[in-house]
Each structure stands twice: as C-alpha cells, then as structure tokens.
C-alpha cells in the first residue's frame, strides 16, 4: 500500500509504540496527588517530560500547556472557554473550528474572514473586522487541504496591538514550520500528536500565562499517559531532514502532474507546507479517481462534493474562489517521512493512467 493521506492521519512510529507500551503494561499508574506512591508518580514524570519537550519546540513554559484529546478538543476548549464577545476566524478552518463557531452564533457574533485565490487571509479585512467587543481571533497556521501557510507573526502583531486574544491551530504545521509563541504573539495554540507519527487522541493546548479560560472539563481527569508519553517520543524522533525530503518529493509531484493537461494546482506555490499538495483535474470527478487509485493500492483523498459530507464540495476550495467545476476533480496528496521516491514515481504513473482513463469516459472534453 502507498499511503498518501498523511494530512488525515499518519503511521505511528515504531519507537513511539514501544514507549507507549511501556506505560500500558509496566508503568500503568496514575498519580492522584503529589503524595501518591512512587509507582504512580511515574505518570507525573511522563506529563512533565512531554510538556518540557513541547515547550522547547514552541518556546513557551511547560506549565502553560494543557493535555487534551487532540485538535478538536483543543479548538473547542478555546472557542467555548473564552469570555463572551465577538470572535473572528476564517472560512478555511478545520471543521472543529467552523462547526463550533456555527453553534456559537446563537450567543455571539462571529466573523469569517475571506481568503484569496492562494488561500491567504485578507489582513485588511481582519483589521476592519476588529470591534470593541472582539475577544478572540482564531486562525490556523497552515491549511489542512492546500497547505497554505499564514503570516502568523503579522496577524499576531495586529491582535496584540488591538489587545485581542490570538489562537492558532497549528495541527498541520507543528514540526514542519517553526513556531515561537512569544515572537508570534500567540496566546493560545492547538497542536496534535497523530499528524506527526504519534498516537491518535492526544493533543495539547498552550494557554499563555494570564489568559482567562474557562475549562470545559473539570475535576480530576485520567489522562492518556501512554499517549502523552508517545507524543513526547514522536517529537523527539522527528528529523528535520524529512521536511527537506518531502519538499523535494512535492516538487517532483508538481512537476509531473503539471504535464497532465487541464490541471490546476491549488494553493500557494511559494508559502505552503512541504507535505501537502492539492490538485484538480478538469472534466472528471475526484471520488472516481480516489476509488481507482484505491484499487491500485494508493490511498489519498478528494475535495469533490461526490465524496463530501452531505455531498458538499471542499469548503476550502470554495472559499479560495474555485467553483465546483474545479473542486469536482480535486485530489489531495499528503506526504510523510515514510513516503519513498519510488512511491512517488508509482503514484505519478498510476495517476496519469487513471486521469486518462476517466477522461476517455467523460463526455466533456474541453
């Protein structure tokens, strides 16, 4: 199998599994207080260790980190935990932001910022949208479908000048782009483990010291200690050389896919994550492309309405100004450190075959 759906989730690193196993079967205790038996206190060490590892990566203090069950919980916690007031976000966020905001519309006003054709947030619209009662700006670091990286430092500066809290969902970008919460003026930061070869169901929320946030879950919580231990390990074994490798592979993919006529490359060419590529093939449909490739053992995803929830096309491509004609034949390739050059070659070959086959079947030729 060739797995190219790494923006959805990733294969867990074997070393991470070993670390997790240790805390499943050997050191499985949970500390309920600072005076718990030494066996149970091992769990405390896990929490502190992982916090330390993460804090070094995003330049915060370990005590400013809260463990969650992942991206959706971290994002929900922010949106539902901040004080009452106006919220600004964008039209291209993850569903855990957009669906939560939709629900919050009953009790507060929400602005959804536009993006341009490459997926960049309209900063002048952001400035104009800031109101007296604006409490929070929530903008993702990099997009889950097209990989476009926002200018977080610039946005952070605007937020700080207007004394508005700034939340960044960095689930896709963590370890692939550097993050400095101080330099970027980030008050709240979402990251997750399963996109960096860590376990599913583990994430973190950074809450800058002094920020008032009402916690959604109260009382002593049994944390996912093995998962948190694995999270720390996944970060430790991450090698920045893999980012370079993925960048080259993505360039090769673009180079080859562009040879196919009537093809659109979505997103920014200059400022995009090295592991995400979204392309559209005119006159054919994405679900059919994905299903054909699936029979060839290649796993990836589509932004086509035919495969979407409630037959809706990708909200990201829609916000970027692409009609259904373009999003209909769109597919998404997500690379990882395990993706090999040979796999890229096979994918290119099969993709060309499938596009040709489907276009031959299609009555629309131009």
């Amino acid at each position, binding site marked *: 199998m060739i797995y190219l759906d790494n923006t959805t989730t990733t294969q867990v690193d074997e070393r991470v599994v070993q670390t997790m196993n240790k805390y499943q079967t050997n050191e499985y205790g949970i500390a309920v207080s600072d005076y718990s038996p030494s066996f149970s206190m091992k769990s405390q060490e896990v929490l502190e260790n992982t916090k330390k590892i993460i804090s070094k990566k995003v330049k915060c203090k370990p005590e400013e980190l809260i463990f969650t069950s992942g991206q959706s919980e971290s994002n929900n916690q922010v949106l539902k935990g901040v004080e009452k007031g106006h919220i600004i976000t964008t039209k291209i966020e993850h569903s855990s932001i957009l669906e939560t905001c939709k629900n919050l519309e009953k009790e507060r006003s929400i602005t959804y910022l536009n993006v341009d054709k490459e997926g960049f947030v309209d900063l002048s619209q952001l400035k104009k949208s800031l109101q007296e009662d604006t409490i929070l700006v929530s903008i993702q670091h990099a997009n889950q479908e097209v990989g476009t990286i926002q200018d977080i430092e610039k946005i952070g500066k605007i937020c700080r000048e207007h004394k508005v809290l700034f939340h960044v969902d960095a689930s896709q970008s963590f370890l692939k782009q550097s993050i400095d919460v101080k330099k970027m003026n980030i008050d709240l930061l979402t990251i997750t483990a399963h996109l960096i070869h860590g376990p599913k169901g583990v994430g973190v929320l950074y809450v800058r010291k002094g920020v008032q946030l009402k916690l959604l879950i109260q009382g002593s919580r049994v944390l996912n200690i093995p998962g948190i231990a694995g999270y720390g390990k996944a970060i430790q074994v991450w090698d920045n050389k893999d980012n370079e490798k993925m960048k080259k592979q993505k360039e090769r993919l673009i180079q080859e896919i562009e040879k196919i006529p009537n093809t659109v490359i979505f997103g920014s060419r200059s400022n995009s994550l090295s592991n995400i590529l979204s392309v559209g093939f005119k*006159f054919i*449909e994405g679900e*059919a492309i994905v*299903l054909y490739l699936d*029979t060839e053992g290649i796993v990836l995803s589509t932004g*086509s309405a035919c*495969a979407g929830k409630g037959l809706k096309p990708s909200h990201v491509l829609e916000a970027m100004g692409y009609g259904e*004609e373009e999003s209909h034949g769109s597919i998404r390739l997500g690379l990882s450190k395990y993706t090999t050059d040979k796999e890229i070659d096979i994918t290119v070959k099969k993709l060309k075959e499938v596009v040709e086959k489907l276009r031959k*079947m299609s*009555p629309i030729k131009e």
Partner: protein
Amino acid sequence: MSVYTEKVLEHFKNPRNQGKLKDYDAVGEKGNPICGDVMYIYIKVKDDKIVDIGWETMGCAAAIATTSMLSEMAKGKTLDEAMKLTKQDVADGLDGLPPVKMHCSNLAADALHEAIQKYREKHKKTKSK
C-alpha cells in the same frame, strides 16, 4: 468496508458498453458539468429494438456504474421495454446504491429515455415525409 456493493465496484472497474457509438440513431444527454454528473447515452435501433448502446459519463463511481448497468439492461430490449426501465431497476441491478447516490441512477434512466424519445420523434418525422 466500502459504501458500495461488490457489483457497483465491479461495474466501475470494468464498465460495459463504454464509449460513444460510431453510428448511432439518437443520443440522450443529462446532467450538467457545474453540478457534477453528466451522462450521454447513445443508441442504435433496429426493428424497434436497441441493438447497440454506448455511453460517456463524467462522475463518481456510482455514476459510472449506473450507466454501465443501465446499458447492459437496455441492450436487446424493445423501445417500449427500455422506456419502462426505472432508476430503481438500475439500483436493484447493482444490489443497491447508497441513498445519497440514487440521483445517479435517476440520471442514467433519464438519459436513456431521452435518447428513445429523440429517436421516436426523428422516426415519426421521416415516416410522415
């Protein structure tokens, strides 16, 4: 597990009667490229029977499989019999379709019916000459 039946996947992978007929009597065209699915069904008629059928489809796996299935069902049938083919017949022939994909089988049946109607109109005109 796929949301599609084995039969849908089988027709999707090995579509029957696919392609535009070189020498056809009528074509039915349904759908539009903006909403996604587009189906063209070509028929060749002899002695009031569909002796050959071909098709072109732009769409998802369900759209491709339903056109393929429909072409198999319609081939060899009289025009009256073919007019009676419904979207449910096509879906049943494929051992079912996910509910949200039923409109695909609708399009295929509609395109066939349109081709037959066009043929009959053309035929009427030539007869009356």
